[in-house]
């Protein structure tokens, strides 16, 4: 599904990603762990198409196509979803209105008709139940005055609505208490299928108790320095990132 080869990216002349190699297949969950400043969020942003990063070398193949040639909106329309570490507030635009616009743009891209109000609302209802999100959030301005937990839950709800093929969760666990963490993880697990894949970017092992990865990669100084199975995360938790740094 996703093949990243020797990907290098920099911002304002400073190289952040220094040759990433990663292959993700349908149905897999990959966790990317690493200390602050190792390039985790940069990787997530580059995959989503943030333009302030300059790709200096390497390639990213997504579903057989050159991902880096696509605009951010086309990547989203082709099924890439980024759950933001810091979801952005858009005053005056309700989650409902925002998602309706998003879904219909994606449908248009696929040559489908816009969803009518009734089908849209019933889809909303179904997915709200799935990720245990409160109706009252839907009519409020997107992310405005949302608590940290509400924002993250809303990201997962959007993911449920847009049904992506590849989801990238960028530090989705940050700022969540244990109950919210469970709810969010539950949502992610319920959305899991054999066809879609998930990349979980996280600093802590904690999240991986709930979202169990097939593979764990440790990112340090712009490179994946170690890969393994879920046990690697536990080892990291025990020994700390210094263990990797020393290696």
């Amino acid at each position, binding site marked *: 599904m996703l093949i990243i080869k020797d990907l290098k990216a920099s911002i304002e002349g400073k190289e952040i990603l220094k040759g990433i190699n990663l292959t993700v297949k349908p149905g897999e969950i990959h966790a990317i762990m690493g200390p602050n400043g190792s390039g985790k969020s940069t990787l997530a942003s580059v995959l989503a198409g943030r333009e302030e990063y300059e790709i200096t070398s390497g390639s990213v193949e997504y579903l057989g196509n050159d991902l880096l040639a696509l605009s951010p*909106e086309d990547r989203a329309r082709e099924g890439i979803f980024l759950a933001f570490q810091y979801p*952005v507030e858009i005053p005056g*635009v309700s989650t409902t209105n925002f998602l309706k616009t998003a879904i219909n743009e994606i449908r248009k891209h696929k040559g489908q008709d816009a969803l009518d109000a009734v089908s849209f609302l019933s889809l909303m209802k179904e997915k709200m139940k799935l990720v245990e999100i409160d109706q009252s959030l839907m009519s409020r301005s997107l992310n405005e005055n949302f608590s940290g937990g509400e924002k993250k839950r809303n990201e997962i709800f959007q993911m449920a609505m847009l049904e992506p093929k590849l989801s990238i969760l960028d530090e989705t666990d940050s700022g969540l208490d244990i109950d919210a963490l469970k709810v969010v993880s539950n949502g992610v697990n319920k959305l899991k299928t054999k066809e879609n894949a998930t990349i979980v970017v996280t600093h802590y092992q904690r999240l991986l108790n709930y979202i169990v990865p097939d593979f764990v990669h440790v990112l340090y100084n712009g490179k994946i320095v170690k890969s393994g199975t879920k046990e690697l995360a536990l080892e990291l938790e025990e020994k700390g990132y210094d263990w990797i740094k020393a290696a």
Partner: protein
Amino acid sequence: MSKDNQILEEFTNSEYKYGFESKIESDSAPKGLNEDIVRFISNKKEEPEWLLEWRLKAYRHWLTMKEPEWANIKFPSIDYQDVIYYAAPKQKIKPNSLDEIDPELRNTFEKLGISLQEQKRLTGVAVDAVLDSVSVATTFKEKLGDLGIIFCSFSEAVHKHPELIKKYMGSVVPANDNYFAALNSAVFSDGSFCYIPKGVRCPMELSTYFRINAANTGQFERTLIVAEEGSYVSYLEGCTAPMRDENQLHAAVVELYAAKDAEIKYSTVQNWYPGNKQGKGGIYNFVTKRGICAGDHSKISWTQVETGSAITWKYPSCILKGNYSVGEFYSVAVTNNFQQADTGTKMIHIGKNTRSRIVSKGVSAGKSQNSYRGLVKVMKRAENARNFSQCDSLLMGDKCGAHTFPYIESDNKTAQIEHEATTSKIGEDQIFYCNQRGIDDENAIALIVNGYCKEVLSQLPMEFAVEAQKLLAITLEGSVG
């Protein structure tokens, strides 16, 4: 160039959608302004002597006045002798019914999405269509007439209801009020008149659609709305003009009169031709709008969506004379390219326990200048007057300007006046967030701007809120890439 700037560069590439010119023969006055022209107009409209005298008096006063210079707008001086003050579409016969209207005329309005055929028109909206200097048609007249509501062109009202015109015309905006109001009073051509009798709630939206078609022509319409005791009316005006290289002058006067317990809701969607991307052409829009809450517990609410015109100079105001009367002003002003807007309101608190609320949302893009100018004045005997003002500015790019000029004058210690102002920019983060959900830059900007203006747009009657949202999107179209 950063992505923000790129987006905003392209933002300025949108085209004006209403710029077509209709081939309609018109019957017009020679260029220029003098007493003979005033007489010519009055004569064309077969007006009574008293009205001619009223016009002449206004004209003579205008001659003694100077163009106001205090607004934050710049434009080459207007040659008032180079303007045609009267143009009327030639119609072979006076139409007795809507079916007899010249098809070309009817097409003009159909193209604008205004059907003059009642059965096709949105139910619940009556329309008065004004082309250049005359009213072309008014729909649903009979139906409204059954309730005692008068909705007709200003000229018709002069003939059929002279006592009402005499009583109210100039009572809120005197002929010598300001330079442009005086000019309008001298040469006004047509406009709409509404009268809602005591206790009647007008069952449909009343709407006037103004269109400037002829070249070199100024449009000077007057609108007068009188709401008698306990009545209610919601009124909407819309305006467009063809694309022309020269600037055209539009100086209108709107007067609202609300008696005890009456409520008038006045909405404007102003989309005059704004000029091209280089700032050539466009309408100079100098408008005086004022309402008086004459009776206790009366209410006047202005809502405006201003997207057009090269220059907008307009301050829809409320004189809160009745005790417990309420004035509201909700405004969205969008400027792009070289547009300039200096707009706001005046809330004059005279009666006791009067309240006013001002919500102004400015959006500036391109190289435009957008100013809010507002006055809240509390007179001596206005015990417990209250005002709340909120003025927000949204900037797109770094070549435009947003300015706020709030004036507060209070002569009563019990007054409570609150003013809040914010300035923000559309963030790259917001646009990227939308992109990441499959929404392209153009739609992202439309979504964000509509969200920002929501508080004002939600004041518009349903049918027009949708239209206004589309209009915002069109104004911002092509802004991205």
